[in-house]
């Protein structure tokens, strides 16, 4: 009887302990509104520190779509400080590797396509500030983020990153032909603008809804990506009655699904095997222990086996192989670009976002007044189908 009591106490104790370990603050006490800018203020200040970069990504892009580029710069610079270096072990990453903490306990830096986009947007902002060499540095870092793929066919295969590297190099009086050749080899549209250093109006466009993450597998240990609902497939840029089609040169959903397996997937796989093994062993021990308990001569051994079975079940329950599905959820799916040459002065530019049939999607067209300055500095325009200001 004492043995049974002891086993029960142990089981109860072990059920309590793992739940008591979760000391990280979460979002239950925060009032989130769905507005990335307002939410990021609250979450960065009072939310989990491990999600800081995630909120900086979301708010940085939201500011870009509002035309508040200084704010975007501040947030993206801070995020890039985290993603730009060598990401060595910290307490959160060690936890994420352990059996009893989920992957989402690690500091969020994002999957490669998310890290690429942080550098890409920061590159646009550097170019706006008249620093094409620092912009090029960002585009190169972005391409490096995409270079660690399992399948090398899809390694560093962003069309625009190589194209912009080549264009910036040409504008800096260098030889950008290698990067330009790489971009043209990757481009499937055949519409990539010429690498013309005299082009002085550079229009960065993005549209569509970026990939979302979900988990599959018995324990949710497999990270998967889903495609958003896409209405916009192209853009049409019209300046002073001259129109240029802007197709999607890069597709973030394609980039997300062609990354291949991660080292972390092996860790999560091991966690899943451990969870399953301890659950089966635990159940076996409990059943065996229960049988042995029926016999007076083997009752104490049965109690011990039962206790071990309960312990094994508790360990199994506490094992967390779930994949991290936190995502930069306001990313676009498609990236496009137009380079134009315009004389100094005022011009009217209209951008229509088109569906798969080439029809303008209602409510998304934008009209902008361009003031092209005299001098050599480029006019950099960033427009998304979700932009509200420019």
């Amino acid at each position, binding site marked *: 009887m004492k043995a049974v009591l002891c086993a029960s106490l142990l089981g109860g104790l072990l059920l309590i302990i793992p739940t008591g370990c979760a000391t990280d603050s979460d979002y239950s006490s925060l009032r989130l509104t769905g507005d990335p800018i307002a939410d990021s203020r609250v979450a960065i200040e009072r939310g989990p520190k491990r999600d800081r970069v995630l909120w900086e990504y979301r708010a940085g892009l939201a500011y870009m779509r509002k035309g508040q580029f200084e704010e975007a710069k501040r947030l993206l610079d801070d995020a890039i400080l985290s993603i730009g270096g060598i*990401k060595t072990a910290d307490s959160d990453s060690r936890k994420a590797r352990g059996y009893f903490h989920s992957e989402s306990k690690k500091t969020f830096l994002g999957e490669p396509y998310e890290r690429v986009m942080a550098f890409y947007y920061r590159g646009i902002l550097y170019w706006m500030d008249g620093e094409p060499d620092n912009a090029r540095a960002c585009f*190169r870092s972005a391409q490096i983020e995409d270079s660690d793929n399992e399948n090398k066919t899809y390694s560093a295969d962003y069309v625009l990153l190589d194209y912009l590297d080549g264009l910036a190099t040409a504008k800096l009086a260098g030889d950008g032909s290698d990067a330009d050749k790489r971009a043209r080899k990757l481009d499937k549209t055949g519409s990539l603008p010429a690498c013309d250093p005299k082009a002085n109006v550079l229009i960065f466009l993005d549209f569509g809804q970026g990939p979302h993450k979900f988990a599959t597998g018995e324990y949710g240990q497999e990270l998967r990506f889903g495609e958003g609902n896409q209405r916009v497939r192209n853009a049409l840029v019209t300046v002073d009655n001259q129109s240029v089609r802007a197709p999607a040169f890069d597709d973030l959903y394609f980039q997300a699904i062609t990354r291949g397996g991660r080292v972390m997937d092996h860790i999560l796989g091991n966690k899943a095997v451990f969870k399953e093994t301890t659950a089966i062993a635990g159940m076996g021990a409990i059943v065996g222990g229960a049988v042995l308990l029926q016999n007076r001569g083997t009752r104490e051994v049965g109690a011990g086996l039962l*206790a071990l079975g309960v312990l094994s079940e508790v360990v199994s329950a506490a094992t967390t192989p779930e994949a991290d599905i936190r995502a930069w959820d306001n990313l676009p799916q498609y990236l496009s670009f137009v380079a134009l040459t315009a004389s100094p002065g005022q011009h009217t530019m209209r951008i229509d976002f088109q569906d798969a049939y080439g029809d303008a999607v209602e409510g998304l067209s934008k009209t902008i007044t361009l003031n092209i300055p005299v001098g050599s500095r480029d006019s950099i325009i960033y427009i998304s189908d979700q932009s509200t200001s420019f």
Partner: protein
Amino acid sequence: MKLSFLRSLSAVLAAAVVSGCASYGVKQPSGVAAREMKPDERGFVSGTGIESQDIVAVTDKMARGIMGIPEIANAQTAPRIVVLPVQNDTRFPINKNIFLEEIMALLNERSGGKVRFLARDRMAELEKERDLKRSGQVTSSTDVSVNKFKGADYMLTGKLVGQTTRTSAGTSDYILYSFELINPDTSEIIWNGSHRIKKQGQDDAVYR
């Protein structure tokens, strides 16, 4: 006997689980307080990019190189130098002023007045001040009608070129820092100095 064994086993297992879900294996669970470090010291926050210790090492080497050339060391009158922006051809966005500002500061400190720098990056403000003096709105200690801004004897500029390799074994970054002192009258490069830094590292498994 068996019961006491069971109790001991329970206690050991419970202790193991408790220690397993506390801060076991976590270095500095309370963080690391801010502390002042020497700029040439490699800190605990580091990557494969351009860092303060690289800037100090590179600029120190360049300043010593410039001080040693005969055109500067043996000049009868202090040569006037204009600094041009550094060109960044690496994958790391940088504050481009920092290298030349640092070299200027080191040369000013160490040369004892043997070189002078021209404030070309302040031309708009300088022209405004000169115009105020010429119009008589503000006073001047010299004859402003004949004063002219000085021309440069030399131009100092630099370039950072990088090469990156990334494989499953990690990331490697090689950066060549090169600086030149150019005579604008002849386009002659009178001095060229360079420094090379290579760094490697690998991300934690949870980020790979």
